[in-house]
């Protein structure tokens, strides 16, 4: 197990390095943050001077060398949009709010998807099942930003139950629901099919014949077997949220998290901040992947981690 984790960590490092290099090359070759930094009436000479001051006119290799040297010391440069603040610091200022959003959203997804999947599996093909399955499909077909607007129109504009924008827990309700619903759809399907499988298995039929209540059967074995694909998918959902969909949800609801900051950084071509965000996100993705694999092992020792 230890060797496996070690190998995965190395692979993770390659990923992180790869994506960092990619962003570095792409931003330096194509972009120019100075355009955004100075007011419109600044002269070309002033812009050129600013580029020199930021070291953007040096050869790419030299810039990359500097970057690597700083990276090793934990310095990911200074954000050009949030003036004078180290990029990593900006990331850690905004990250907690995204983590809140993802945590609450995923919790909601788990809490909703398990009962949904279990109920749907009771009578496969029955009305409840079909209704729930269709609802799940709808949930995962709607684009999240549209879902977000629908929620906002209903609950903020019309009903005025929830506020959105930066704030406390109440402002988190709608964005978390928005983040959770598509995941609920996908997760419920997994629970449902695993439960159907279990209920059909010979072992369970024997237990039923013996007279064990359904609840005990479900509780003891079925859920555990559903665990593996469920955890896999859950891990993927978390990754998908952190690495992309929080950007959309945070933009719609104006939740000032890392995704929102990523959108701002990209629009202002703030290289260092973009780099730092991608770096931190890549690290989180790698760690979650490894965590999922470990969870696998815990849930089913028979699973061979290859």
């Amino acid at each position, binding site marked *: 197990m230890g060797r496996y984790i070690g190998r995965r960590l190395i692979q993770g490092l390659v990923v992180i390095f790869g994506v960092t290099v990619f962003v570095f090359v792409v931003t330096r070759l194509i972009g120019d943050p100075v355009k*955004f930094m100075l007011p419109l009436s600044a002269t070309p000479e*002033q812009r050129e001077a600013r580029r020199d001051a930021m070291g953007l006119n040096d050869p790419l290799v030299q810039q990359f060398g500097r970057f690597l040297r700083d990276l090793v010391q934990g310095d990911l440069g200074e954000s050009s949009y949030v003036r004078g603040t180290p990029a990593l610091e900006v990331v850690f200022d905004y990250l907690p709010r995204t983590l809140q959003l993802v945590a609450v959203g995923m919790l909601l997804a788990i809490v909703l998807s398990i009962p949904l999947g279990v109920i749907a599996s009771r009578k496969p093909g029955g009305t409840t099942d079909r209704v729930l399955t269709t609802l799940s499909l709808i949930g995962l077909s709607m684009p999240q930003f549209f879902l977000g607007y629908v929620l906002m129109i209903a609950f903020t504009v019309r009903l005025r139950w929830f506020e959105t924008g*930066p704030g406390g827990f109440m402002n988190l309700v709608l964005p978390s629901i928005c983040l959770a619903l598509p995941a609920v759809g996908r997760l419920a399907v997994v629970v449902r099919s695993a439960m159907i499988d279990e209920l059909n298995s010979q072992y369970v039929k024997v237990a039923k014949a013996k007279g064990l209540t359904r609840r005990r059967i479900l509780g003891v074995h079925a859920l555990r077997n559903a665990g593996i694909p469920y955890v896999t998918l859950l891990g993927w959902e978390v990754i998908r949220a952190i690495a992309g969909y929080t950007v959309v949800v945070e933009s719609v609801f104006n939740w*000032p998290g890392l995704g929102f900051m990523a959108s701002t950084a990209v629009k202002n071509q703030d290289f260092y901040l973009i780099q730092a965000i991608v770096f931190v996100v890549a690290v989180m993705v790698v760690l979650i992947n490894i965590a999922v694999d470990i969870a696998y092992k815990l849930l089913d020792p028979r699973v061979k981690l290859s």
Partner: protein
Amino acid sequence: MRTRHRLLSALVVLGVVASACGGDDDDTTSTDTPPATEAPTDSGETPTTSPTTSPAIEGASITIALGSEPTSLDPHIVDDGGERAINDNIYETLLARTPDGELIPSLATDLPTLIDDTTWEFTLREGVTFHDGTPFNADAVVATVERMIGLIAAEGTDNAGFYDTLTGATAIDEHTVQITTSGPDGVLPARMYWLKIVTPADAAKDDLSSAPNGTGPYAFVERETGVAIELAAYAGYWGDAPSIADVTYRFVTEGGTRLAGLKSGQYDLITNLPPNDVAQAPQAAAIQGQENPIIILDADDGITADVNVRKALNLALDKQAIADVVYAGYAVPVDGQLLSPSILGHNDDINAYPYDPEQAKQLLEEAGVAGETITLVGESSGRWLNDRELVEAIASYWTEAGLNVDLQTPEFGAYLDVLFDRSNRADAIFVSSSNDLLDPSRQLNTYYSLSGVGSSNSNAELQQLVADGQSSLDADERATIYQEAVQIAYDEAYFAFLVSNQDLYGLSERMEWTPRVDSKLLVKEMSVNG
């Protein structure tokens, strides 16, 4: 089973912990507390607080929602509306303006006197202190000016364009200071309306973002990045005590979300109220500000080289309809010049080109360009209010007039490339020019003068006039020179003049405030009733 439960409970705990960790970003001030007696929150808890805690002041607490978070709180480094919205209340300048735009004394006791062509003398107010107790005197002014000069030299500020004529400052005595410029500079007083004064100790620091410290009516209390900044009234302020004791700023980029917060009572004042949502706000306030969208026409080359074509492009636009539809009526057609009526040099004799589509079509046919392609460049990131709609509407009008319009709306970065490309000027480039100093010099320099970064003409006479206007030291003389300059640009139709959209603010029921022409949000001018 146990493992599964363990995992689940771990997740639950994680979730709860994560929520709890960030849970203290609830409003530190609530807007539905009675306005009469409200003590400001104690500033002693977090590291990023001001050096002094002001004693409890009687007054109301309000919340203002801005469209963007300041990228820095240093008063000299960035050119950022968000930063100004907050720092205009913390710091002060030698001169200020009335809400209608007239220069008046502030930290200086009077308008400056000219010692010679390049030296201006200011007499400073006595009895003023900074929030940390440092007394305000000539040393502070000198330190501030020198800091700015240093920043410009080191390419460390975005505000070089405002202050590049400053060469130095000298303290004559404790309350008299002289400021020198590189040449005769009629704009100097306006510059001193913009330059925020800091203490000599602060002037030596690299970045003042973490502990803003000024002479203004409000002192910095605390900041939660991404969420809010809080200020509280400063007991030792030299001027009249403001009626608002405590103000919290929140950053809400989406217009719809800002409006929703206004309606629900979360916010007392919001900026950039979308024009078509005015009816939704409990109260709205509008003022003709300094925002001037124009289209720069290439007078040297291509389809727009013919002055009649340029005139046609102006005549083809129904500016009133644009004002009514794109800005829901909260805009006025621009009267043929880039200067707004409140600015020195505005030529009252010029009227907007009328809407005359027939004449436009005719001119285009006579010029032989009917059916030809004209390139119009806008931008797509919504930098200026409704600019995408505006540019698309213009494209429609020019199409009606008989041209084939190639409308391009690149992302802001690519758009800037087009705007600044001196070797290949595009036929028509949209830009919205705002005038921060309320002085004509910089605006005209940029767009009228052939040496400007945003201009598309080669008129040497025009360039000379603009330069003379800046260096003249007599306000009346400057006015005459500028009036002549804008007349030339109008006759030559160097621009397609559009509409000037008003600054729109949304106010809560209890807010009382009149907007200023310079768009500054001065909390000391605000009050609440009931």
